[in-house]
């Protein structure tokens, strides 16, 4: 480049940096605003009820207290519920992701009779509201003697059309050259799936795993219907029976709710970097 061109490029870069800085600031500010309601909820649970309903905005508790959490932690079976949630959510996630990857790959890349019909059935299952099917699921699980078991809680959750749909779309967008090159090299379908398609989509797999796990952890209506004893309840069902006072209990209600969500949030925050990296793993088109 000539000297004037280089000067122009430098000016551009500086201007870009200012815009870049502005964009970064806007993003960070947006993030802070987005996270504020959660911060506010947590702060509320650390205040005594009387302080909660006072006038004025108090962004940090004047009288710090953990009372609102004690009752739930020590008077209920919440430890057991956490474990149940972990088992059922983990099982659902593992099975769904494996099945969906396989099915998504098959629909995306393989030719077999009934392929279109299968795809339409999956789309259709996404369009039917779960409330319409839930009673039939209950009857089915009852016939299999799976009521009030963790397996019964897991069963109907294995219908996860979204996961298949997303896998199929992402597998579709893998460029054909990769496939052709590998086939020429003598790869069979399993090689293709495990050496190319999946590795190129670890980000999606991680994302889907997280989403599935969270969905399973937070599910209420089905576990509520399927479970009759406290020992088999998951967290979202268990906390609805927390004995406490009526009356003014903003802080206590929020504390109970936050306790239910906390483990997943903590795990996410701890593994935040790994998760971000996994998602950010560049699929990279070389060359």
């Amino acid at each position, binding site marked *: 480049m000539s000297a004037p061109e280089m000067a122009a*490029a430098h000016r551009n870069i500086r201007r870009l940096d200012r815009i*870049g800085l502005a*964009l*970064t600031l806007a*993003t960070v500010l*947006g993030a*802070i605003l*987005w*996270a504020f*309601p*959660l911060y*506010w*909820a947590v702060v*509320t649970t650390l205040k005594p009820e009387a302080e*909660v*309903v006072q006038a004025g*905005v108090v962004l940090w508790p004047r009288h710090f207290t953990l009372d609102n959490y004690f009752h739930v932690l020590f008077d209920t079976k919440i430890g057991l519920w956490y474990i149940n949630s972990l088992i059922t959510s983990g099982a659902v996630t593992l099975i769904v992701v494996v*099945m969906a990857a*396989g*099915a998504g790959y*098959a629909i995306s890349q*393989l*030719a077999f*009779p009934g392929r279109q019909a*299968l795809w339409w*059935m*999956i789309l259709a*299952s996404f*369009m039917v*509201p779960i*409330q*319409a099917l839930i*009673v*039939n*699921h*209950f009857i*089915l699980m009852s016939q299999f003697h799976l009521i009030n078991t963790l397996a019964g809680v897991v069963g109907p959750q294995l*219908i996860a059309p*979204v996961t*298949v749909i*997303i896998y199929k779309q992402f597998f579709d*967008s893998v460029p054909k050259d990769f496939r052709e090159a590998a086939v020429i090299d003598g790869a069979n*379908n399993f090689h293709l799936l495990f050496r190319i398609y999946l590795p190129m*989509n670890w*980000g*999606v797999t991680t994302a889907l795993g997280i*989403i599935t796990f969270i969905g399973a952890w*937070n599910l*209420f209506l089905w576990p509520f219907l399927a479970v009759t004893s406290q020992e088999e309840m998951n967290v*979202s069902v268990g906390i609805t029976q927390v004995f406490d006072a009526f009356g003014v209990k*903003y802080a206590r209600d929020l504390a109970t*709710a936050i306790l239910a*969500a906390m483990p997943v*949030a903590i795990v*996410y925050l701890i593994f*935040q970097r790994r998760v971000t990296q996994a998602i*950010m*793993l560049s*699929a*990279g088109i070389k060359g």
Partner: protein
Amino acid sequence: MLKSKRTEIAVALVLISPFLLIYGVLFIYPTVKMVQLSFTNAPLIGAGEWVGIKNFQRLSFDRLFISAIWNTVYFVVLSVIPSTLLGLVVALGVNRLKGWVQSFVLAAFFLPYILPVSVVFRVWSWMFDKDFGIAQNLIAPFNDGQHISIFRTVPLFMPAVAFVTIWWLLGFNVLLFIAGLRNISTEIYEAAALDGASRWTQFRRITWPLIWPVTVLVLTIQLILQLKIFDQVYLFANGGRADATMVVVQYIYKQAFQQSHGGLAAAASLVLFVVIAAFSILQFQLLRARGAT
């Protein structure tokens, strides 16, 4: 070549058979039952008598059901496109950052997604509480110093619930968009930057077209998800003018669980399914036409 075709089918079978088994038992069978049920007057659980299309006729005359459909469409308009576009914007923002700043920003936008709907409900009804909610400090100046009960004021209800829903579910869209953005090679951007293309041009010419498949995917998923909206609307309307803001799945829930009208609820579910299918196909065709240009 016949051999490889047969192998292909065999492999496909292996990959989809557990899937098919579970779907057969837990989706096909219950859905068939549901369709059957919609022609009967069955209660929530148990058999009923055949009544032909009486349930569907009843639905067509039910003012509440019709308004539920309109409310659902209104909610979709308020939430689907904004949440998709916002998801893309946030994903772009996060993608540019590095290090702990990136982690913080991603966590802030994603953490709401981790929460169950009951927590989201409690957090936001507390934020907006008419007497003690902190958001009232922002609202009151625009309303002669008076607090407003957001969720108990009918015209404000849907926008408020849409707002909360976007806050809650944005993380899902952001994740998908980030995964999609990472599939675009950085070299294309570098080349464009060297050619002097501005940020906006880069977005319009590179990002937007290349991310289009993911955008379509997100739009479609959000469309179908929000047409099935229930939990937030139910929770925020509970105890108030629930009929005015009722959505279709809420109607189904009410008929099935509150009044034990299993047949009628099944019929409503079937109608909803047709509506969702119609909308999805319509959107898909529209978007495909756009994407081709």
